[in-house]
């Protein structure tokens, strides 16, 4: 797979994985926070139920006490004592329930104080019920006073308990909401930054690729340039030498190109070079085939062939294809159209020891082809 596609796939996949992770994180986080909110509400509700039950038990006690004060029978008194004992256990129950909610001490100070007051009052009422008889002096007034104070106390426990817990729950929920929003925004920010980084990296990669292309490509013909040729020629030569493999180097030169330029102008000359380059590009399509513009009207092709005739067949085809371009060149008296000459150097060849030899032999063969009448190829020995 080409390197640039691999890099793009890497960025795309990483961005996708990160996006999925972010979404999963946000969903999981919000679910956890919702659970925490529900739990908080549930605990608050549970405490308030205890308070409301206290209110209800007090209402029962008050009704029963009024009965006892109106009809001070042993049965009524006994029922009042039962109600009082039931209510007496409420203060400790409410304190424990409040502690479970983990309300800060500073918030529950006055509330605990009132619970203690409630506890004292209910025990005072218990003492009154157990030690005095309903008809004794001051009994009624004491009982009514205690009931009134208990009523205030129960109202306070209900009102302030609701406020306290609501405040506590709201603070918790607000913190959780803020946390949720902040984390969501943070995740989104990181996602945006990641996307930005990906884009920036892609741009850098594109610029780098563009620069690489500029450095290795001929601006007119888009074939590889001389610099690229130097690198590839050395590498391919070394590889073929090491493996004692088949490698052919074709050096091509447009015939009488100076004359062509002088006759038809540089614009037509450039156009002709582009069309010749196109022929080479189409001919050098296999893996391991290379086409270069070496400079001016000079081109080069490197190709791996199975045998020595492969390069000759290719040279014949190129010569024919260039003629078939039918680029009029009237000053060339033999052909009447633009032609090229080709010099071929081939490996393996014991005489060729270095890439300089390889190049030189192709160059000499080209010279021979030119000398022999042009529009032909020659194989260097």
């Amino acid at each position: 797979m080409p390197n640039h596609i691999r890099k793009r796939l890497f960025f795309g996949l990483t961005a996708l994985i990160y996006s999925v992770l972010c979404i999963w994180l946000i969903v999981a986080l919000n679910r956890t926070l919702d659970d925490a909110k529900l739990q908080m509400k549930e605990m608050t509700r549970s405490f308030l139920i205890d308070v409301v039950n206290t209110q209800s038990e007090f209402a029962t006690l008050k009704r029963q006490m009024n009965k006892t004060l109106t009809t001070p029978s042993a049965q009524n008194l006994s029922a009042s004592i039962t109600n009082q004992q039931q209510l007496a256990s409420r203060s400790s129950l409410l304190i424990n329930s409040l502690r479970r909610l983990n309300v800060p001490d500073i918030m529950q100070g006055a509330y605990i104080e009132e619970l203690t007051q409630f506890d004292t009052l209910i025990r005072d009422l218990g003492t009154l019920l157990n030690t005095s008889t309903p008809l004794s002096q001051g009994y009624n007034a004491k009982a009514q006073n205690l009931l009134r104070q208990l009523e205030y106390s129960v109202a306070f426990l209900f009102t302030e308990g609701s406020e306290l817990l609501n405040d506590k729950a709201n603070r918790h929920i607000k913190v959780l909401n803020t946390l949720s929003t902040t984390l969501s925004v943070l995740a989104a920010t990181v996602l945006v930054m990641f996307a930005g980084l990906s884009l920036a990296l892609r741009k850098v990669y594109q610029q780098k690729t563009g620069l690489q292309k500029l450095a290795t490509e001929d601006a007119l013909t888009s074939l590889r340039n001389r610099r690229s040729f130097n690198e590839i020629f050395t590498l391919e030569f070394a590889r073929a030498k090491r493996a004692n493999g088949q490698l052919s180097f074709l050096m091509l030169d447009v015939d009488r190109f100076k004359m062509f330029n002088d006759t038809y102008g540089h614009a037509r000359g450039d156009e002709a070079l582009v069309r010749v380059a196109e022929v080479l590009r189409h001919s050098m399509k296999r893996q391991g085939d290379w086409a270069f513009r070496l400079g001016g009207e000079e081109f080069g092709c490197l190709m791996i062939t199975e045998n020595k005739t492969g390069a000759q067949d290719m040279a014949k085809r190129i010569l024919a294809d260039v003629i078939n371009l039918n680029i009029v060149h009237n000053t060339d008296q033999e052909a009447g159209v633009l032609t090229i000459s080709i010099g071929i150097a081939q490996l393996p060849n014991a005489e060729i020891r270095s890439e300089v030899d390889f190049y030189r032999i192709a160059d000499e063969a080209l010279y021979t082809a030119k000398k022999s009448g042009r529009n032909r190829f020659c194989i260097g020995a």
Partner: protein
Amino acid sequence: MTYFRCLAVIATLVLSAYGNGVFAAEVTPFTGPQVTGSGKGYDISIEGKRLGLADIQSLPTYQTTLKTAFGLEGTFVGVKLLDALQDGGIKDFKSIFVRAANDYKITVMSKDAGIDQALLAYSLNGKLLTLNDKGPYWLIWPQYAEALLAGEGSTVKWSWSVVDIRKIK
């Protein structure tokens, strides 16, 4: 530059997430014509003193327009709780006991935030509040109306059908 613009947008989002954006409903003096009724069922006991609708209406009256967390909305007219308490003889207090006709009981503390704006409302949108419509007197807290709608705060002190107020401390 685009990067900084993105940061600014994100910062705004974060800041707006932290802000609560809750505003209180305004309480202003009421100067319109007073609604009158038969007067029956509009008595309230403050520290044992019985006050009728005319007594209540003789105090400075105020109006506030809000939507309650209980669904009713519009312009409420009533007297300030503190004025009513003073008229009933409760000048200083730490806490008071408020009882409704349905035996709903709460306490109100002098230090409760917004108590100076709390109203004993007797009319809504030009009509007297009836016993079925939270009447005869509804203790409303305009300062928290919008917070309640936003799901914050407690409705426990919004006691309707108030018939009895006594000083505890």
